[in-house]
C-alpha cells in the first residue's frame, strides 16, 4: 500500500504584476491555487479546472496560460500578469477594460478577466487582425452570457484605437 503522504514545499520566486515576490508553496498547488490563496488575485477564476474554459487565464512571460493546469512551482523566475496588474496607479481602468464595459461585453463577469488577458496578449503584438483571426485567438474562452459578439467588438475596437486607425464598418 501507499506510504504515508509527506507534505512537500518549495520556495518560488517570481514577478507578479511588476513586483518581485517569493512564497513557500505546497508542490501540489496549481498556479490558480497560489495566485488566489497566497496573493488574493481573485480575478483568477476557478471554472472547469481542466483547461477547457479559460476563466483562470493569466499571462506568463507575455503568453496566455490556463493557470488551473499549470503547477505553482513552475512560476519560478517567470513574469506573471493578472487582471489586477492592468489598473493604473490610482485604480484607473485600462482601455481594454473600458471597452468591455462600453460594448456590454460583460454580464456576470466570470469569464471577463480571462478574456481580457488574452486580449492583452493579442493587442500587445501590435498587429492588425481580421475578424476570423480574432475569433480564433479568442476561442480558448467560454462565455455563457454574452454570445461573444460584444467581446469580439470590444477587442476589435481597442485594436483599431491602439493602431490609430478608424474601425471599418
Amino acid at each position, binding site marked *: 500500500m*501507499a506510504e504515508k*503522504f*509527506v507534505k*512537500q514545499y518549495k520556495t518560488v520566486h517570481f514577478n507578479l504584476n511588476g513586483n518581485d515576490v517569493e512564497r513557500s508553496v*505546497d*508542490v*501540489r*498547488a*496549481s498556479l490558480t*491555487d497560489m495566485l488566489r490563496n497566497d496573493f488574493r488575485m481573485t480575478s483568477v477564476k476557478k471554472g472547469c*479546472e*481542466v*483547461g*477547457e474554459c*479559460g476563466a483562470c*487565464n493569466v499571462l506568463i512571460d507575455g*503568453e*496566455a*496560460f*490556463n493557470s488551473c*493546469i*499549470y*503547477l505553482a*512551482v*513552475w512560476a*519560478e523566475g517567470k513574469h506573471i500578469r493578472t487582471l489586477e496588474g492592468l489598473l493604473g496607479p490610482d485604480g484607473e481602468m485600462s482601455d481594454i477594460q473600458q471597452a468591455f464595459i462600453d460594448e456590454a461585453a460583460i454580464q456576470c463577469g466570470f469569464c471577463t478577466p480571462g478574456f481580457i488577458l*488574452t486580449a492583452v*496578449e493579442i493587442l500587445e503584438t501590435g498587429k492588425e487582425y481580421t475578424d476570423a483571426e480574432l475569433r*480564433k*485567438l479568442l*476561442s*480558448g*474562452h467560454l462565455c455563457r452570457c454574452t454570445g461573444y459578439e460584444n467581446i469580439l467588438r470590444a477587442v476589435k475596437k481597442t485594436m483599431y484605437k491602439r493602431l490609430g486607425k478608424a474601425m471599418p464598418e
Partner: protein
Amino acid sequence: MYDMKALYEAGSVDEAVALRVAHPDAQIIAGGSDVLVQMREGKRAGAELISIYGIDALRGVSQEADGTLRIGSLTSFSHITKDPLIQQYINVLGEAVDQVGGPQIRNIGTIGGNTCNGVTSADSASTLFAWDAIVELTGPDGVRRQPIHDFYLKAGKVDLHPGEIQTAILIPKESYENTFGHYIKYAMRNAMDIATLGTSVNVRLSADKKTVERTRIAFGVAGPVPLRAATAEQTANGQPVSQELAEAFSQAVKADINPRDSWRASRDFRMHIAVESAKRAFIESVRLAGGEL
C-alpha cells in the same frame, strides 16, 4: 491542489534520466495538459511526478549539419507554428498543431507530450507519420533514434524504455526536401475539439511539376494508432498529376484503413471523410508544390 504523492523536478536531461532511474514508478510531466487533467479526473491520482517542464535545453527548433530538422520535445505548439525553420521546410506541421485545442493549450502543450501519450487523435501525429519523423530517446544507456512508426506500440502505449525520456523529434532532409503537405482536421467544432479524423498528405513533384515523384499520407483516428495508407501511396507514386489521380488515390485509402464506431462518429462516416479528406489534402499539396490539376 492536485492529488500527487511527490514531485521531482529535473533541470537537465541528465537529471531527468537519473530521476527516472531512481523513481521507476513516477510519471513524466511535460506541459501537463494531459497529465494534470487526468490527475484531476482521478486516473493518475496519487502518482509521483517527474517534471521535465524546466529543461529549457529541450525547447526550440534547429537544423543539424546534415540538414535534419531537430524539434526539441518541450517545444510548445505555438512556438512550432511561429518557427521560421518549420515555416520554411515543413509548414504543414505548424498548421496542424495550430489546430490543437485553443490558444492557451497551444502555449502549454508540447510536441513531446503529444507523441508520448500514444493517442491516435493527436494533431501532430499524422503529419509526423506522413513525414517519416524520427523520435530521439535519451536514457541511462545513451541516445537511441527510432522511426515514429515503431515508437507507437498500441493505443496509449509508446516504446519508452525504463529510465528514458523523449528528447527530440527529427525530420530528415530526404523527407522534407522539395516536399509540400496539407493537413485536414475534421472535428465537430472549429476550436477546442478533438479530431474525428486527421489526414496529412504530402507530395514531391518532378521538376516539370507534371509527375508525382512521391506521395505520403497518414491518418489519425483511422485505427488505434496513427497509420500510413500504403496502397494509396503506391497508387499515386510515379503517376502523372491529374484530377483522376486525386480520385484514384483517395479511393485507394479504403484498402488501408480500419476506423471504428465511437460516440464521436460511425465507422462509415469516418470512411467517407477519410476519402474526401485524402482527396482535398492531395489536391492542396499538389497545388502548394506548384502543380496544376
